[in-house]
């Protein structure tokens, strides 16, 4: 059962990474990148490393997505 979940999560990381590279919208790409690190955090918990998972969830999924959104907002022209 546990291995099945780990396989599912690894496949989801793969799908999120491919989407983050191939999507057209910058916001959707940033969200997909955050989702990849979200799945990685759950994978770390299932593999028995809760401290790594907590750091990954706070920095990878929370902080980096915020910084990406801020950077996108500051570097694109004002939307109509």
């Amino acid at each position, binding site marked *: *059962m*546990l291995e*099945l*979940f780990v396989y*599912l*999560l690894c496949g*989801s990381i793969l*799908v*999120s990474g491919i*989407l983050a590279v191939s999507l057209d*919208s910058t*916001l*959707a790409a940033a*969200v*997909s990148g*955050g*989702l990849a690190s*979200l*799945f990685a*955090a*759950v994978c770390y*918990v*299932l593999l028995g490393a*809760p401290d790594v*998972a*907590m750091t990954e*969830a*706070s920095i990878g*999924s*929370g902080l980096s*997505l*915020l910084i990406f*959104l*801020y950077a*996108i*907002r500051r570097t694109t022209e004002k*939307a109509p």
Partner: protein
Amino acid sequence: MAEEILIVAAILIFLGVALSVLRLILGRTVIDRVAAVDTLTVVSISLIALYAHVAGRSIYLDVALVYGVLSFLAVLAIARYLEQGL
């Protein structure tokens, strides 16, 4: 009895992850994808809580707690971004 409940919960979580990833792939607008990400976060929190019960380690519940707070912040940031506020 408890075993069957855990297996049913695991199957439901599995279906939730699979269908949300499908919505993420097929999603036409950004809003669809953001909703899929929010659903996936809730499903992930329930998966971590279920695994904390199965493994018998309460330290995993702390991860679920941090996860819930941060995912709320992330969705809030995306919403502010879409409303031109960030």
